Structure formats: structure tokens, C-alpha cells
């Protein structure tokens, strides 16, 4: 099982801030995960936006990088505190 986190406005899109999933075999990269989840949530591209970054176990990765042995994957929309 992989823990998936949806931060900021994305939790409104997915209806959850956190879930545990078995990723299908064909979801091998960050980009494939975006596409699969965007369809699954009918998110209309919200998970595909380039401004939404993906972190695997607290490291930002590019869309063509593999999800190998990911324990926790986070979808991170643009950030900003203060």
C-alpha cells in the first residue's frame, strides 16, 4: 500500500487529504500516477497541472521519474506561507 497525500486545494478536488492505495502495475512514474488519479477522481486536469509538484518520500521528482518503493507520495500545489 502507498500513502497518497493531497495538499491545499487538491483535497477539495479529491475529497480527501490522505488515502492508502495499491498502485496498479502500469503506474510506474510520477506522470502515470497523475494521469491515473486525475481520471479516477474526475479531476479534470487538476492533478496534471505543471504547478502541482509530486514528492516521493519527501523528495520532489519529475514526471518521468519512477515511483519505485514509494511509501508516501504527495501532490503539492503552489506553496506559500507567512
Amino acid at each position, binding site marked *: 500500500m502507498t500513502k497518497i497525500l493531497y495538499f491545499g486545494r487538491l483535497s477539495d478536488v479529491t475529497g480527501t487529504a490522505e488515502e492508502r492505495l495499491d498502485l496498479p502495475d502500469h503506474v510506474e512514474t510520477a506522470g502515470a500516477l497523475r494521469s491515473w488519479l486525475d481520471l479516477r477522481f474526475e479531476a479534470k486536469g487538476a492533478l496534471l497541472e505543471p504547478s502541482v509538484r509530486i514528492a516521493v518520500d519527501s523528495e520532489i521528482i519529475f514526471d518521468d521519474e519512477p515511483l519505485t518503493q514509494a511509501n508516501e507520495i504527495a501532490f503539492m500545489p503552489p506553496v506559500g*506561507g507567512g
Partner: protein
Amino acid sequence: MLRISPAPLDSAALLKTFEQDVGNAGGIVSFSGRVRSAAQAGKVTGLHLQAYSPMTETGIEAAMSEARQRWPLTHSLVAHRIGDMVPGDTIVFVATASKHRRAAFEAADFLMDYLKTEAVFWKKETTPSGDLWIEPRSEDYSDAARWSAE
């Protein structure tokens, strides 16, 4: 020093402790940011701030380390509140100390630009017409870009 917590921030108490830690260093600059009651979406009655540990801490610590490399600071402090707040609450307190006042000013300014645009936080405002997630304004990005243009 970095502190991220849902506990209320007391700027005056933080400045007092910081000054004690700092000893005789010439100049201390502080910035306190508070939750506004009016924002892009009109009246704001509450604010929720979300962090993602340890990415939030790691990022801020890297920015603090960069500040110490760029300016001759003797001390620096970032205290950031998370969770639920109301207007008037202090959301962030930054303090820097240096023998050179210019360094203390620039480093505090730099850390605030980082916190506004790059720190791993997500901000949701509660308004009479509903909740709204807020992402950085273009003004925040242009402020932050000043530091890499040098």
C-alpha cells in the same frame, strides 16, 4: 532556530528570548506577520495553514542556512504557526541579528520572501461565502526573484 507549531505566537515574548540569546550583537530585525481580516476574497474570518513535515522544516532550514552564508548573521529565528487562526493572530515571526544592520534587514527580508513563496505551506481562508485556498500573489514572486537576480 526554527519552530513550527499550532500554538499561538507571541512576537514580544519571542523577541525578548531572541535578544537574550543574541547578547550584544549590534542590530536585531524582526518581522511579525498577522492574519488580516480583509484579503483578496473580501472579509476573512479564519485562516488554516497546512504544513508537510519534514519537507516544510527541511526547506526553511535550507533557506536559513543560505541566509547565514549570504549575510554575517550571529543568530536567526523563524517561528511559524500552523493550523487554525483568526484575524489578528500572528502567523509568522522572523528575527535576525548581526553586527551590521544592513545584513540583519536583508536577511529578514530574504527569509520572509522565502516563507511567502517557497516554504511548504498551504493556506485556506474562511470567508462568509465559503473557504478558499490561497496561492502566492505575483507580487510575492517578484519580491522573491530579487534575491536570485543579484
